[in-house]
């Protein structure tokens, strides 16, 4: 059993990593997302779509030069941690994440977004009632990844339980969900799709799919990408070629009588950052 000093230093190390990762994610977009936006800008000829993408490009520059968050919806952080065998998996990890989020909220600063679901009372710290969500898996290195997620895109995410015979309906379901969402999720969007597992597992897979950087797509990802972009919704729903910057699918084994499909919609401000936790 690790001693109290170890617990304290573990908590501090995780808090520092959380603050550092959030600062990076909230202010700087990952390179793969920036490059995808540049490609979209080069491809657009619709003047409204071009001006929307121009505002996004200027915004990315402004956030970096002013050292402020890209979007006022700084989101709620989702945290993914890999823990090597020599690090004790204890409450200190979760407590460290909460410390880091509280610090980030005051210092970066972040908008306090976490409220009680029914009373809507704001905790003021982005912590409380099980928030932030923390997912831990064993790993070789001690790393911490944050994926802060705003509500505009999260609110149009969807889950559907299909019949096992309905695999061909997946593309239609995703395309229809994006169509109904229109400009609400701040397109151009990135689509994280979870296929398989259980209802809760598919939702988790869909969000985890967003951790994979944009790049070459598999045939189903490409098919969905082409279908969604053919809709012409365009940046912000004002029309244009670019509705979606990329599609990422993660699959999980599932019950023979089941086919869960979850979609997690990510806005163009696809914020994520990974840092190494400095412990011991």
């Amino acid at each position: 059993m690790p001693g109290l000093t170890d617990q304290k230093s573990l908590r501090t190390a995780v808090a520092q990593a959380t603050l550092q990762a959030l600062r990076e994610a909230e202010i700087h977009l990952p390179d793969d997302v920036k490059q995808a936006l540049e490609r979209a800008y080069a491809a657009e000829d619709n003047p409204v779509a071009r001006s929307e993408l121009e505002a996004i490009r200027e915004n990315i520059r402004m956030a970096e030069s002013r050292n402020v968050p890209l979007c006022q919806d700084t989101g709620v952080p989702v945290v993914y941690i890999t823990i090597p065998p020599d690090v004790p998996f204890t409450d200190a990890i979760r407590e460290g994440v909460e410390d880091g989020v509280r610090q980030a909220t005051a210092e970066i600063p972040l908008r306090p977004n976490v409220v009680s679901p029914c009373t809507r009372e704001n905790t003021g710290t982005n912590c409380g009632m099980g928030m932030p969500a923390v997912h831990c898996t064993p790993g070789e290195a001690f790393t911490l990844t944050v994926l802060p997620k705003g509500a505009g895109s999260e609110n149009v995410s969807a889950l559907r339980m299909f019949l096992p015979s309905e695999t061909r309906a997946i593309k239609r379901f995703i395309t229809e969900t994006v169509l109904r969402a229109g400009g609400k999720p701040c397109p151009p969007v990135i689509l994280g799709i979870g296929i398989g597992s259980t209802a809760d597992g598919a939702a988790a897979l869909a969000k985890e799919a967003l951790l994979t950087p944009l790049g070459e797509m598999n045939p189903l990802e490409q098919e969905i990408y082409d279908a969604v972009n053919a809709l012409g919704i365009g940046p912000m729903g004002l029309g244009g070629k670019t509705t979606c910057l990329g599609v990422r699918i993660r699959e999980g084994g599932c019950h023979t009588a089941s086919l869960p499909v979850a979609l997690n919609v990510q806005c163009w401000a696809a914020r994520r950052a990974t840092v190494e936790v400095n412990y011991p």
Partner: protein
Amino acid sequence: MNALSTPLGDEVLTLRAGDRVTLSGMIYTARDEAHLRMQEAGIPFDPEGAAVYHCGPVVKDGTIIAAGPTTSARMNELSGFLLDAGVRALIGKGGMGDTVREQLRGRGVYLAFTGGCAALAASRMTLKGVFYEDLGMPEAVWAIECRELPLTVAIDAEGGDLFRDVRLASEKIFDEMF
């Protein structure tokens, strides 16, 4: 590009959906909670020619840090009283419903600001005051002076609605695809 400044007058009636404009002068943020309170307690600023911005900014030490638009559709059923009181422009993202489009007819416009562009917005804003601070940072009504905010006219005063046009075209493409 049209350069608009508040208080807005009849010049907004000639704008057409798809036009690019810039907006300068005072604007007031309001989200769901602020709309509900204003409906009950009255509008705390002069609504004549005003622009209401659907936004919950990040504010620190009296400075606007980040102030992009929030989803306007949540305010679909909460905007009529503002337009009745003389508000000339609603600013937000994602478009608004049929009711608002009709309420804007002959009176005002809905201006789309690029979602997520909070740092760009903040770089052109100065905080001037606040109402309803007890509602919390995102829901309070912040009085902000802005300089040349770049916007797209999405709903005009003649019923032109770019979001609706795009949606109808997309629905048609979807129906042909599946």
